[in-house]
């Protein structure tokens, strides 16, 4: 079996995607009689002016992005702080880390209603929920980054006369930061997950209002237009974070 060239692979992928969209369009237009199925052309027509053309929708999307940014920044900062505090001592890590993992494993959807009760219907609850999602991978990566510094590097720096404080500053801390950056994409994905979940849940405003509106008025085209727009933004954000990650990992082999 011969391997395809890279361009060939990309072309096949593109062809697949185009093909799927074509089948979707064909099905929606000619086969399905349900008003619940919208084809790509319907979605495209609904996109502007009905969805993104509507200023309130744009505002909702904009607010969501701001909530995401705030929640993400908080996750990274506080995640690293907590991670450092836990990972600093052996005892601290061995006692706290399992608790962190257990908390990480709890399906957070169940505390969403509580968060909304406590933080209200505004951006605060969405930021809080995004934060509670994104903070865990950062904590886990921070602790891991502190633990798995190569003993060779530590031995080497000690041999050159570095004090413990210098080792922390020049060896352990940078290594930890790069490990955190390696996990940044996961943190971003989870934070986004939390923010979106909260937004959809709170249907009194924001994106949730419009998803509910389009659902209840049986407007699948508009719903899909909104959802796909957000999905594309998510992909773009993912790519952005991946570029940042790559930039900071250039020294890695």
């Amino acid at each position: 079996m011969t391997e395809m060239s890279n361009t060939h692979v990309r072309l096949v992928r593109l062809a697949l995607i185009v093909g799927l969209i074509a089948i979707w369009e064909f099905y929606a237009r000619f086969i399905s009689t349900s008003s619940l199925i919208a084809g790509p052309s319907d979605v495209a027509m609904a996109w502007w002016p009905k969805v993104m053309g509507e200023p309130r929708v744009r505002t909702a999307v904009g607010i969501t992005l701001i909530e995401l940014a705030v929640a993400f920044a908080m996750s990274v900062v506080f995640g690293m702080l907590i991670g450092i505090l836990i990972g600093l001592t052996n005892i601290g890590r061995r006692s706290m880390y399992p608790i962190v993992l257990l908390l990480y494993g709890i399906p957070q959807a169940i505390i969403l209603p509580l968060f909304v009760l406590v933080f209200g219907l505004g951006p605060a609850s969405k930021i809080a929920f995004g934060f509670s999602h994104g903070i865990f991978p950062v904590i886990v990566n921070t602790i891991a980054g502190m633990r798995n510094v190569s003993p060779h590097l530590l031995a080497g720096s000690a041999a050159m006369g570095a004090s413990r404080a210098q080792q922390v500053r020049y060896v352990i801390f940078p290594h930890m930061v790069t490990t955190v950056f390696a996990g940044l994409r996961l943190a971003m994905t989870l934070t986004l997950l939390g923010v979106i979940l909260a937004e959809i849940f709170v249907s009194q405003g924001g994106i949730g209002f419009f998803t509910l509106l389009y659902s209840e008025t049986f407007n699948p085209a508009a719903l899909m237009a909104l959802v796909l727009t957000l999905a594309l933004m998510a992909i773009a954000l993912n790519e952005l974070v991946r570029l940042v990650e790559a930039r900071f990992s250039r020294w890695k082999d």
Partner: protein
Amino acid sequence: MAMPREPVLIRSIQFGLVAILFGTWWFVTQSSQKLMLLLPRPELVWREMQLLWSSGRLWAAATITVTEIVKAYVIAVVAGILVGFLVTRSKNLVRIFEPMLAGMFAIPLTLFFPLFVVFFGIGPDSKIAYAATYSFFPIALNTIAGFSSVDELYLRAVRSMGASSIQQFRHVYLPGALPVTLTGLRIGFFICIASVLGGETLAAAAGVGKSIALSAELMETARLYAWIAFVVLASVVLNLLALAAETRSERE
């Protein structure tokens, strides 16, 4: 370095923390009346928990939720392993599909949940479809990784000794791919649970998530905490079981 006292110290810290947490909760609710709405007294929560248990409402909701989880997981496992295995039949297929699957998994699929509700309605089907879709990805991706990671060297060696395709699959592919595939199944399982609960919280007719959303809406905070407590307990037990299974398989 490991002193025999250490595990005891660790456990004490852990239990101590939990005790402090509950203690603070109890103390705060004793003295202040203001938080009553958001932070009910522990005794009230405990009473609600007992009520949910004895009245059967816990079991009714749990049955619905667990059924949804099981159905969704079975679909995801069958589809995920099948697709994952088929993709690894050719290196070209892997190069075409793996990045696509990985890319789709990176989007919070929660975005698409409203679409599932529009198509499948507010009943269990939308949750099953959504959770099955979400957990399909880590299973398929890990199956691909698992079967791709089987060292060509072993396959060549075994072929040179005359192994048939079935023998190659049974003695090289399967054992080689198993560890990574199992990890995918584990990740998929927890994603399945989270997705079902998430879906139920957002839009459902019944189930644990629905009960939680409902008690919040009705401001029945003690009951809300009770529901949350049950789910947290179940989740902790599941996680500990998964951890135990993992450490045991690693030891082999």
